[in-house]
């Protein structure tokens, strides 16, 4: 099971109280996690990545194991700690500044 942490607004949208665990087909990548997430929670479609291009929205970041994985290609395998469920895959809303 893959552990996923969503930003608060998306947890509310998906009607989730806490963090999320999902079965994700291997190889576990950003893309396969988002495919599984959007299949389980269709209301999240379009909120993390673009409908058409599947590109990450500009103010969304992907963190795991203390690293910013946002710029990795979406088919890059994720760290073992994520695939083994030891560390969460964190979907983060970028800082607004100001």
């Amino acid at each position, binding site marked *: 099971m893959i552990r996923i942490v969503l930003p608060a607004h998306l947890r509310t*949208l998906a009607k989730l109280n806490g963090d999320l665990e999902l079965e994700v087909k291997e190889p576990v990548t950003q893309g396969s996690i988002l495919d599984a997430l959007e299949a389980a929670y269709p209301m999240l479609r379009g*909120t993390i990545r673009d409908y058409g291009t599947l590109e990450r929205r500009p103010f969304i970041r992907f963190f795991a194991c203390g690293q910013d994985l946002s710029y990795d290609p979406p088919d890059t395998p994720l760290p073992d700690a994520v695939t083994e469920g030891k560390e969460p895959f964190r979907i983060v809303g970028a800082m607004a500044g100001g």
Partner: protein
Amino acid sequence: MSKVRVLVGTRKGAFILTSDEKREDWKIDGPHFGGWEIYHATGTPADPDRLYVSQSTGWFGQLIQRSNDGGKTWEAMGNEFAYDGVPGTHKWYDGTQHPWEFKRVWHLEPSRTDPDTLYAGVEDAALFRTSDGAKTWQELPGLRNVKGDLWQPGAGGMCLHNIIISPDDPNRMYVAISAAGAFRTDDAGKTWRPATHGLKSSGELPDAEAEVGHCVHSIAMHPSRPEVLFMQKHWDVMRSDDCGDSWHEVSGNLPSDFGFPIAVHAHEPETIYVVPIKSDSEHYPPDSKLRVYRSRSGGNEWEALTKGLPQSDCYVNVLRNALAVDTLDSCGIYFGTTGGQVYGSTDSGDQWSPIVRDLPAVLSVEVQVLP
């Protein structure tokens, strides 16, 4: 006794204000979707408890919410707004052509007869339609064929923010687009033509009477007089008596003819309302006095409505979708400000009082009268 429900969209959520028909005591419910920008929230004439909300942020994009119980519960609906075919290009700030890119929904306009049918005006400017209660959306692409390559965003974005469905002919609609103009269809959106003859924008356009490029801020119509339209343009208050084929100015004695919203009294088709703003670079009221101006002659002669509104040190704005009228016998007028106040009048604007004072900046106000 009837009830009144005011739907308020703000920078940080939606609020639902309810009262009985006396409109003296109000219940404030919200925020719904706290933290999200609510560009528009509206009810549907065919089913008053069916509500739709446009919800967005820069982080997570666009959502459409639907309620079937007057706002007690909500369901996220379809949010895929894909332009028809190859999106094409429009004019960019540097004069080059730039691809159409969806950003947000500015306005939702329900059918008068079917609660599942709804139009959405979006940025980058285009018109979408749903006929399944907002599960799926399809563009009406003919609009962008009207010299769309010449449309150029203004500072506020290239947004379609106003949709009017003619009450006597649902095939006839009007839309307004910032920095592009006003457009009309007579065939339910298949084909469109500019409705800009008579508009003059000498300060904003190299050709003051160009067919497209005028910055139309708002259009209003009285249902009993569908051939008569009123427009608040960037500068100038305008009137058309021929379904938008031609326009003439009716700014008259207004202290400033810049502004955003315009509305028509529910029972008096020649009584109209605007909120003058000082200028296009100073988005606050002239003389720091918040005044609604009313004309009972369809324009040109205007009177200031000030009772109950701040008459000193006021620097708020009233945005294009933030003025609405109810249909009770004594017509109620409502508007919201960028300072977070929602003001109401129960006597056609003679006297005003705040319904709520400290909301986030108000983006839209709609009102329903419920049985």
